[in-house]
């Protein structure tokens, strides 16, 4: 693990550079959550709705929605696959995603259907992820998504 501006980054995870999800892929299965930067910009999660187990998705499809202090919108899947597990703890206690973005605050698990191709669009490893994250922090600051209101 390393940190960028006090945000923890795990270089063995895959990161979606567009939607800020992290993926922990093990074989054909992946656990998915949101990285701490995007959560910081959204504020405390107030309501999380997740689609059910069994849903088949293509990359970019919505798998749920979030209403947070500063954001409302869909979760868009970083990869294609089938939802095989939903984190009910997060549905009951949405702030868990903010408190434990990499731990108990995960969102769904998927059985991956096209990962070999799709992983090329994700970032992994310290150097690429660090570079991207630093760029994103700057971008978020310019947009005042991290500034004190």
């Amino acid at each position: 693990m390393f940190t960028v501006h006090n945000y923890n980054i795990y270089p063995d995870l895959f990161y979606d550079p567009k939607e800020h999800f992290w993926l922990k892929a093990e074989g054909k299965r992946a656990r998915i959550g949101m990285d701490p930067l995007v959560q910081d910009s959204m504020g405390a999660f107030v309501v999380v709705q997740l689609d059910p187990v069994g849903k088949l998705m293509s990359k970019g499809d919505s798998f749920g929605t979030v209403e947070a202090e500063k954001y409302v919108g869909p979760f868009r899947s970083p990869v294609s696959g089938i939802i095989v597990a939903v984190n009910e703890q997060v549905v009951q206690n949405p702030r868990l995603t903010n408190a434990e973005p990499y731990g108990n605050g995960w969102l769904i698990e998927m059985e991956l259907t096209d990962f070999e191709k799709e992983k090329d669009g994700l970032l992994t490893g310290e150097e690429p992820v660090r570079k991207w994250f630093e760029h994103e922090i700057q971008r978020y600051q310019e947009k005042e998504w991290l500034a004190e209101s």
Partner: protein
Amino acid sequence: MASGILGQSDLKQQAFAVRRTYFPDEIDFYAPGLKRYSTEEFEQKRPRAFLPISLTGSSCALQCDHCESKILEPMISPAKDESLFYLCKRLSDSGTEGVLISGGSSPITGGVPLLKFTHDIARIKSELGLRVFVHTGLVCEKTAAELKNAGVDGVMIDVIGADETIRDVYHLNFSVKDFDRSLELLMKYGHSVRPHIILGLHYGKFIGEYSALEMIAQYSVHALILVILTPLAGTAMQNTKPPEVSEIENFFQESRLRLPRTPILLGCARPPGKHKEAVDRAAVDCGLNGIAYPAEGIVAYSGSKGLKPNFHEKACSCGC
């Protein structure tokens, strides 16, 4: 009720027909800077254009069962020793064009403590040129008069039509008559009134909503805003089931038929996910005039009904 003995499908069609009779074939979508918002159809470009302010920070003495101050938490508050005027000046300097002033309510008055801020509001209007909308709660005559003198552009008030909801959910020692009196006072002083009805407020059940609608129908309000109980984690209603879409749709139809010439808008507070998609669709079908933070696909759906979309980055109750 206006519905009579028509079937549900007939009522929906009738409601939409009423809309087409009295309004242009346009629908307004709102995404104020209270939250960042993004779908494939509508992306905010100026999220700081219109911002909410809480005069009491995240404090509210009422601790209503559906909210328990959660709704106030993301709002902006004056910093320590900062006046409302200087907060608004700071916002204005960074591009804000309008504010919604809200806050926690007093259990004694049932309203937001606005009287000590009317002088600042008058300065915000005259010196900064911001649009100012105020969420009042119950008002007395003095508050209604001074807000008008201060030049507010519009006032919002949650209208509750059942004494038991006022008592059991809002924990207020007031009655339906007091809400009626507040509406009367706001209208008396010439305010642009945008009342809200929270559907399913009483633990997911419809109790006073139709009475609230009837109360509002006695006045020429500027617009009616409908929102839906949204169970929030950490509140007494966190496990409450929101009202069924069919009940909500019935109310949309009835509102449209009862207030044929009044803009009716679907506000931002409503359960997310599939429920929201269905409710938004019902809002379009039943002839409502606008939707805040529309679900994905609703802009296209409204286009399929012959409605041209307009997009606004301000609160629905303040943008109409």
